[in-house]
């Protein structure tokens, strides 16, 4: 048996290096508000929204409006990453092939074009990817690639910053209401991403004190003893950052920590893995999700965290639940108290499934998942509205939330949307 533990240096890609800004095509002046009507509205311009917009462009659907609360493509995704000082993505190069079937520039070729900007470690990762091995992708490369993808598919000029308040099917149209705008669309694609998971009721007695924060909030730089709650990649980054600052860390994992290369078992990035979700009973899918969509840490962290644990900078509290979280630390279920100056909760995320935008009866939520058509990813009870990203996990499996899952979801959604737009055009003629 061959044991492979990737080196921690893979985590140290430079961020915000001077990356060339390529001449982007100018686009005509436009109104501050999105147009009142469009063939398609995409809500959310993160990696999933960008993938859907690019695919639609290739299928000839050009009357598309994107609305995103954070503005530029993938802005929120990148902000979160920077908040954690995360330098690489664990979605490997081969998961970013550009729009399927159109020979768009792949992420790996995009990185190779910028060879002189890459470190030796980053170049070696490209070679590993070319040889069919697992690789990690520098965030700088991904960010520049998103910019290029947005420019060539006219996403930049079709994207408006705005908060969507509701999505309301109305006959053969769908009304998208936002802060100061309303768009009547033929079809809507929800690419809503995920929200942070809040602490369970009962952990906090009353309002959250300032000594308790979540993973997407700044950590006070003077926290000398930090308590990190959570067992995933986010928790690992928080610990890594605290150790780098010279803080001592108490890590409450609740279960045992798990190290693995990718977010979910690699089989779920392939058709045979997705087939385990295809047409099987709901309870079977739920059980699979519970087993497979579990927090895990990239292997690269393992030597760092083990070394810190061995020399006493890190204490890991495994296998015990949490009774309470206070400004002084965490009370464990076994009665022990874990003290610290600051507690950071990294409890994972909750997929946004359309609740709060679409009426509840159209979302058809069951066990926290929307009721989607498996072939098209349209809401069964609102067939002009589609969901991509983590919301599609019960159809595509746990990898639906990953870049590769966006590719699969996009292929199904874009084909359906484009066919509908063509049918409407023919009917109009």
């Amino acid at each position, binding site marked *: 048996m061959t044991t492979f533990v990737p080196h921690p240096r893979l985590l140290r890609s430079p961020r915000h290096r001077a990356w060339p800004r390529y001449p982007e*095509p100018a686009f005509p002046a436009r109104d501050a508000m999105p147009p009142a009507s469009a063939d398609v509205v995409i809500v959310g311009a993160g990696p999933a929204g960008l993938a859907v917009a690019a695919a639609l*462009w290739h299928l000839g659907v050009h009357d598309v409006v994107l609305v995103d609360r954070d503005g530029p493509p993938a802005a929120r995704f990148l902000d979160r990453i920077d908040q954690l000082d995360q330098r690489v993505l664990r979605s490997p190069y081969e998961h970013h092939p550009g729009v399927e079937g159109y020979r768009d520039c792949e992420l790996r070729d995009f990185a*190779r*074009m*910028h*060879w002189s900007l890459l470190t030796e470690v980053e170049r*070696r990762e490209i*070679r590993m990817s070319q040889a069919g091995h697992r690789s990690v992708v520098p965030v700088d490369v991904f960010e520049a690639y998103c910019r290029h993808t947005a*420019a*060539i598919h006219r996403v930049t000029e079709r994207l408006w910053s705005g908060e969507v308040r509701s999505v309301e099917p109305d006959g053969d149209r769908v009304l998208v209401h936002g802060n100061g705008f309303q768009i009547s669309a033929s079809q809507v694609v929800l690419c809503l991403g995920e929200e942070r998971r809040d602490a369970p009721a009962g952990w906090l007695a009353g309002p959250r004190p300032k000594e308790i924060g979540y993973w997407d909030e700044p950590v006070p730089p003077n926290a000398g003893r930090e308590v990190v709650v959570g067992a995933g990649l986010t928790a690992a980054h928080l610990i890594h950052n605290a150790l780098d600052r010279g803080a001592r860390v108490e890590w409450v994992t609740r279960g045992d920590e798990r190290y693995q290369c990718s977010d979910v078992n690699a089989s779920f990035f392939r058709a045979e893995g997705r087939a385990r979700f295809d047409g099987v009973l709901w309870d079977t899918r739920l059980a699979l999700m519970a087993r497979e969509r579990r927090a895990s840490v990239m292997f690269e962290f393992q030597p760092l965290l083990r070394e810190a644990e061995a020399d006493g900078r890190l204490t890991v509290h495994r296998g015990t639940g949490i009774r309470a979280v206070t400004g002084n630390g965490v009370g464990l279920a076994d009665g022990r108290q874990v003290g610290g100056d600051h507690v950071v909760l990294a409890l994972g995320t909750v997929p946004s499934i359309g609740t709060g935008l679409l009426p509840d009866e159209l979302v058809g939520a069951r066990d926290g998942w929307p009721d989607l058509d498996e072939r098209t990813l349209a809401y069964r009870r609102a067939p002009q509205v589609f969901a991509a990203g983590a919301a599609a996990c019960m159809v595509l499996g746990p990898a639906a939330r990953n870049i590769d899952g966006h590719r699969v979801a996009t292929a199904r959604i874009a084909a359906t949307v484009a066919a509908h737009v063509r049918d409407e055009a023919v009917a109009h003629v």
Partner: protein
Amino acid sequence: MSEPYDTTFSLPSIDDDPDTEVGVLLMGLGPERLLAGLGVASRDPTADPATATLLVDQLRHGVRPDLTFESAVAVGAERWRVACDGFVAANLSLGLRSAALRRLWESAAGAIAAHADAVPQLRTAGAAEWVYLTACWLRLAEITRIAEEHVVLPELPS
């Protein structure tokens, strides 16, 4: 029983010139894209190979109001015809082709650079033009056919 073969392998170098990395990448692109890249590069002496390549990507997607993919190919074809005269004047030929792509690239790029002073048709204004001219030369027959036929098949629906 022990493995009868040596199963160790090495990955390609990571220390080669960045232009070699781009060059090897370009060797896998279609001839129209190479001619368009040559056209873009010959119009802009300051362009580096990455800029030229990404501009070609923009042209393929029809998002630039100032230039089309077809016109870039036409400019590239014109530049290619001039270069072909240069190859004849310099008595340059590819000769034996190495199966090692990086060595093949370095040899071809080096040959063009070595003749650039003496043969004006092979003189390039910037790195992008030199890289794209090399890539075209390595695909001589295809490039010449496309340049002579003036056929540009739209690669993308738009």
